[in-house]
């Protein structure tokens, strides 16, 4: 039996992690979560998630994106960045979602990217 699509949530807010974890797990996705970037990076290296949801305010998103890219070499994850990204930020995210966002479209987007990877 194949593994379910996986999502890594890197988000400092415990509330937002809980919301996404609860909803996505009920949709059959495998969830990893981290409150800060270094921990998230370690999880990305270990599990190569299909989708990474990253809070842009945690650290400079372009740096993180490059580092996640390297971490999941050959098995590039789709990246969704939450929050405002500066115009000088050379980010290659699949999707950038400004804060404050609504959860329904975000969950829908995660499901779409996860389904594509599966």
């Amino acid at each position, binding site marked *: 039996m194949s593994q379910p699509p996986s999502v890594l949530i890197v988000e400092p807010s415990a*509330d937002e992690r809980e*919301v996404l974890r609860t909803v996505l797990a009920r949709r059959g996705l495998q969830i990893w979560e981290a409150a800060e970037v270094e921990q998230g990076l370690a999880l990305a290296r270990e599990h190569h998630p299909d989708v990474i949801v990253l809070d842009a305010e945690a650290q400079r998103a372009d740096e993180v994106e490059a580092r996640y890219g390297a971490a999941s070499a050959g098995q590039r994850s789709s990246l969704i960045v939450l929050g405002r990204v500066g115009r000088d930020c050379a980010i290659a995210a699949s999707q950038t979602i400004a*804060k404050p*966002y*609504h959860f329904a479209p975000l969950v829908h987007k995660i499901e779409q990217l996860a389904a594509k990877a599966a």
Partner: protein
Amino acid sequence: MATLFVMQGRDKGKRFDLRGEGITLGRDGSNRIQLNDSEISRRHAEVRRTSEGIVLADLASSNGTFVNLEKIGERLLKNGDRVQIGRTLLLFTDADDRSSVNLAHDVDIVGLGSASLAGGESGNVEGSRILKSVSHESGSQLFAPPDPAESPWLARARSNLQVMYRTALAVSHTLDIDQLLTRILDLIFEWVETDRGCIMLVDSETEELAPAASRNRKGARVDGKMSISRTILDYVMQHKEGVLTSDARDDERWNPEGSIVKLGVREAICVPMQGRYGIVGVIYIDTYTPPGQVIQQRAANKFSEEHLKLMVAIGHQAALAVEDTSYYSAMVQAERLAAMGQTIATLSHHIKNILQGIRGGSYLIEEGLKEEDNDVVRRGWRIVDKNQERISNLVMDMLTFSKDREPELAEADLNQTLADVVELMQARAGEAEVQLALARRDDLPQFRFDADLLHKAVLNVVTNAIDACEKRAGGRVEVSVEYQPGEQFVHIVVSDNGEGIAAEDLQRIFSVFESKKGSRGTGLGLPVSQKIMREHGGDIRVESTPGAGSRFYLELPTNVSSGGAPVNQTE
């Protein structure tokens, strides 16, 4: 750091950092320095870094680029240079200009012992001898009333010097432009026998003269509204010269049918306020002597060439002061706007995060209801509830911080206030896996304090203590009271065994919007607690060991007056 600061124009108050390469100025959005000015070209000028310094180059603009009123192609900028493009005036400053030079290499203080300039009884100062010394008071005697035996020329020169000296003193250190102009007029009225005076300043937007201050001599015959001849004003502005007209019909420059004659002004002085880089306005004074009085007094003109010269000098001095005051006002305004912008940005960030939490919780409730899953509904509700509490705290902290108010002091039970805080925070402590305890003191008397405010002050400190211990093994926060009868202060102590605070952060934690808690902190909690304790006449202090924990002491005076100040118990 080199900057261009907008002193005039629609972008007044903005400061542009000149770090980096390829900095262009222009109307277009593609410029690093975009200016809202229709008289500026799309790409107007460029700032370049060279080995000699920072160079400003015009990029074949339609209306040209000016440095200190001089049209330039390319110019090495010096600290204090004024750059005019279109209607926008910018001030160039470069803080590195001199700061990197170590003056200790250029200046030596030689000799032994204390720096007594008298050099002991002999008056020797390292090989030199003091021949004469003059105190500050004696220096002012330079401007003493002239000796009657002195030559008239010297007496006049001395008197004029006194006027200029006092003008310089009077116009310095004034940041209020209205106050500055009033002072200038007051001084003029003191020294020149004039009936009316007016200062007109050039409006930076319209470039037209507009009255900014006026004054009439007490008891002078003044015919209602002051009318000032446009002929005089135009002449002064165009020729940048002061003019004296003591009798309009005798002065060839004025047409007998002109406005001076019609206005009936017998004597007037109008001088430009010539600043460093242009005319900032004019000073106009006039006096009227009715024909009968002239015959009766056989009066010579009240205004002389000497007066005119003095007024020109005063005009120049006043203009420098007006320029400085405008500059400082713009700086203050810019700082104020920057602080306001920073405050709004910080608060918006917190509100946005809270809103995000509320949306998340609502979404969970919606999902739970849809699937009739009470567990999901409960989780959602807990998140909503927590975030509505966060926004409520934020608003209350903002209100407490922004208002100066006197605490409503009343006899109250300190144990009860602390117990309320601990009870309220138990749920949060449980969530953070922190043990929260209150060490009650049953021997405490009633103290006078504002129970609501003190509750808030302690609550903020306890919240931080719980956050500092969150998810740490054996995390514990204790609230206790240190008090000895007869002591001036009772101490509420909030101690934790959390992560502690680094020595370099200890002072910063009481600064507004400084938070070490990331998105969880607003940076208002401790400043609010400190404000509340100080309003009670007490204070808050902290001891901390990084890695081991912190102790916050909230000092509350045991006997406070209604004004919040401690009362001396011996009285």
